[in-house]
């Protein structure tokens, strides 16, 4: 059987080799033993083997090395041939590592993965860097230069010189020059070249450059050392300014998370005066709706995965909203005007909901994936901005605006405000106050549900998800001023930013305590929060 397979493979290989240019054929066959030697044994031997492959300087070995780094390189136990393998059904689909032609399939137990560890991944990264510097795709060239930058490999200088001479893209050229500077500083070239390199890094001005320069400062002497010291001072100064900006961004991001968690509560607690301890569980239910939606998409329509959050939003709103209405009609409406009983009853409901979710979905975390457009980060100057945080800020603002519009521009909003300000007068005017109560509570809970969709992207989806947010939410609403949405917005953002500016100095634990103390003091001074509601409602 295996003989037959090898024979077929051989035929297949011959076929593709013949169809390709003749020189590629001889190269491929010369490289094959080297590639197969990758399956020899332990990490140390694999590393040596990688060195030999790189020494050939042939870009044809790049795909195999890339696959090795990603853990996709396997060898077949029967003949120790090395293949690139991807999961297909119960086994693996094999690809020839040199010709990149399909090479049949293998069962799960017929092939063994060639192990890599961090050290090997680093070796591979710099090896690939030197091999792909002349690639056709500018992005690949840039990645190659970045790899050399990280490796600071003096051996790469010649390759970089050649690549720089041929480079046409300005962006890539800049990265290559930086990589060259990094390599020069690690080599034994003369001081003039090194000074030039220090200047390049000083212009680069980011943390990577700083890291390299600190290394130079401690190892070099004379003029190079002085230049490095100067450059370090300069970079530190500019980074300090960026750090402040970054902190504000973190604060806004934390603030928007607080806003999302608190905005539903601002309606149920702020507008209706109901102390709803089950608010956090509404957020949790929203997150679980996201999980269910993603699970369904994964099994039935994987192509829709990037839109999963948009599908989850209305469903989460409905699910949490309906549960909210049920809670209001079933429990809370009997308890209006009795805050202590409401608090205890809703706390009980929160425990019931948590345990229910735990029984249905299990106690362990559920995986909610980030869609492509919410993964990763980009940089503005020296500031790193992650996509998921950015979209959550945008989303929080949209939810806030939407809610404002509903309350200010729709008849339902008018009723809600009327009932809040003077329940008996509103009832006399023909507004069905119980209906408005139920709908308002449903709205608040529904908003908590869509907050859950957003929070599922940054937090873990477990039955305890809501608990972490309930205290913070009450803090925001009380601080911002009960009954005022603008207060919630300003309150959330202020708390977020204050928290983030305290954290680097006081640490996360003390920072949180400080914020709590600040709020207590503030409430002593202004018991109604930042934006106190004026009018009869307050006295009621």
């Amino acid at each position: 059987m295996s003989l037959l397979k090898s024979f077929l493979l051989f035929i297949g290989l011959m076929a593709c080799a013949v169809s390709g240019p003749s020189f590629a054929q001889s190269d491929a066959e010369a490289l094959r033993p080297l590639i197969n030697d990758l399956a020899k044994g332990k990490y140390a031997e694999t590393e040596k083997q990688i060195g030999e492959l790189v020494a050939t300087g042939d870009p044809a070995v790049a795909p195999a090395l890339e696959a090795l780094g990603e853990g996709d390189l396997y060898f077949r136990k029967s003949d120790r041939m090395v293949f690139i393998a991807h999961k297909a059904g119960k086994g693996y689909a094999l690809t020839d590592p040199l010709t990149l032609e399909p090479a049949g399939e293998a069962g799960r137990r017929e092939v063994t993965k060639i192990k890599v560890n961090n050290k090997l991944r680093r070796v591979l990264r710099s090896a690939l860097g030197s091999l792909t510097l002349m690639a056709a795709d500018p992005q690949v060239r840039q990645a190659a230069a970045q790899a050399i930058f990280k490796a600071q490999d003096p051996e790469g200088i010649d390759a970089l010189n050649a690549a720089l001479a041929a480079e046409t893209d300005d962006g890539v050229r800049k990265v290559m020059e930086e990589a060259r500077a990094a390599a020069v500083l690690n080599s034994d070239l003369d001081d003039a070249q090194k000074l030039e390199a220090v200047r390049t890094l000083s212009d680069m001005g980011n943390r990577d450059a700083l890291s390299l320069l600190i290394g130079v400062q401690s190892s070099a002497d004379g003029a190079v050392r002085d230049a490095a010291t100067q450059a370090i001072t300069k970079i530190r100064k500019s980074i300090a300014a960026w750090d402040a900006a970054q902190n504000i961004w973190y604060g806004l991001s934390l603030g928007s998370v607080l806003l999302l968690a608190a905005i539903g509560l601002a309606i149920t607690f702020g507008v209706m005066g109901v102390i709803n301890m089950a608010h956090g569980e509404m957020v949790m239910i929203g997150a679980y709706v996201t999980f269910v939606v993603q699970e369904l998409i994964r099994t039935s329509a994987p192509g829709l995965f990037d839109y999963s959050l948009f599908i989850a939003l209305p469903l989460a709103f409905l699910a949490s909203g309906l549960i909210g209405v049920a809670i209001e009609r079933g429990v809370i409406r009997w308890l209006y005007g009795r805050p202590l009983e409401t608090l205890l009853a809703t706390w009980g409901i929160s425990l019931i909901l948590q345990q229910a979710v735990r029984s249905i979905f299990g106690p362990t975390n559920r995986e909610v994936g980030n869609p492509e457009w919410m993964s990763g980060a980009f940089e503005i100057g020296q500031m790193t901005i992650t996509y998921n945080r950015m979209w959550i800020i945008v989303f929080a603002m949209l939810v806030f605006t939407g809610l404002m519009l509903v309350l200010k521009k729709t008849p339902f909003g008018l009723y809600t405000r009327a009932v809040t300000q003077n329940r008996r007068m509103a009832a006399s005017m023909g507004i069905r106050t119980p209906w408005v109560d139920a709908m308002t509570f449903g709205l608040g809970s529904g908003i908590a549900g869509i907050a859950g969709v957003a929070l599922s992207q940054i937090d873990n989806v477990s039955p305890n998800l809501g608990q972490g947010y309930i205290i913070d939410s009450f803090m925001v609403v009380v601080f911002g001023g009960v009954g005022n949405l603008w207060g919630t917005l300003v309150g959330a953002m202020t708390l977020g930013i204050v928290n983030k500016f305290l954290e680097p100095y006081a640490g996360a634990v003390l920072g949180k305590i400080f914020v709590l103390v600040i709020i207590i003091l503030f409430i002593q001074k202004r018991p109604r929060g930042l934006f106190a509601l004026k009018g009869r409602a307050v006295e009621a």
Partner: protein
Amino acid sequence: MHKGNSMKKTFTKLALAGLMASTIIGGAAAQEDTIKVGILHSLSGTMAISETTLKDAMLMLIEEQNKKGGLLGKKLEAVVVDPASDWPLFAEKARELIEVNGVDAVFGCWTSVSRKSVLPVFEELNSILFYPVQYEGEESQRNVFYTGAAPNQQAIPAVDYLMNEEGVERWVLAGTDYVYPRTTNKILEAYLKSKGVAEEDIMINYTPFGHSDWQTIVSDIKTFGSAGKKTAVVSTINGDANVPFYKELGNAGIKAEDIPVVAFSVGEEELAGLDTAPLVGHLAAWNYFQSADTDANAEFIETWQAYVGDDNRVTNDPMEAHFIGFNMWVEAVEKAGTTDPDAVIDAIVGVSVPNLTGGYSAMMPNHHITKPVLIGEIQDDGQFETVWETSGLVVGDAWSDYLDGSKDLISDWRAPLSCGNFNTVTGKCGGSGS
């Protein structure tokens, strides 16, 4: 008279049943010919996420033992209670298990604070507790058997690995703010300094339980890492907080090749809620990985997945600890011929049972066990791949050799010493600590 007595008995039984109905699975209707085993793991509250699995694992082990014919000719019966992640409740439930249900051994607890809460109960009522989780050490108690890793079976080898294999010179010790991370980091700090690491090359950071906003800390780690020296993070971050931490790491683009994170509380179970593709290469140190390639492990995984009826359920290190602890108890009871705690405590020292990584683990006189130490890298399928392991077994050390006040202490529960904290300098039992 006879009738009245039995009426009274029935009434007591009913009342008991009513009281316990919510907490006990397996029935209050006690049968005399069973040996009862208590399971003390939180099934609700914050820790339910980790502890529920251990409850299921114990139930499975007991079922398997019963299939083999039970113990001393009797069937085993599990008594499950739910201490609900509430530390004082752990002590109450432990008392209930021992006094009301009359269990012969208890398997349970996860957090150190819950263990500390039940210690006096086990001492007072002279029962046995098997504790399956890696912990900070600095403790050795006659009635407790520590089947998880002590710091020298997890933290120290992990740091050695990073130092020798990855050439790490700068260290971030990040942890959740409670007793295990604080003690472990104190030991690690002392250890690193003894290896010549400078004060400014160690950054220690604590966060509250369930911390979810990691932006500042991840960016601090990035800054700390850009000082021209190879940097690594040693994470004792516990429970729920890990998922947002790793998500932030992944999004911020901190690659394992640049700043590896080695975690002591992240196992297969914790990774189940995560897309691990951006985390490939980050490390964890344990005494067991699901990926361990042995027949015993394959059989264990198969039994487990069949028991819970889910082919994707993972196994983890504390489960293996319960597996070892349970088998040790079974063997000790058979050796002693009775379930009497005193006899079992004397019989269990020296008992050696197979572990799941292809060797044998033995109970030492200090009530800790011998284990191999494995370092694994996270793979994109949520599993770990062992990249390094100790050449032999490591003996759990109750008292760290790197802390003042603890390095002179030894623990040996065999007669005639029979002491958990014998001070070798003063020659007296009761040096310091608990």
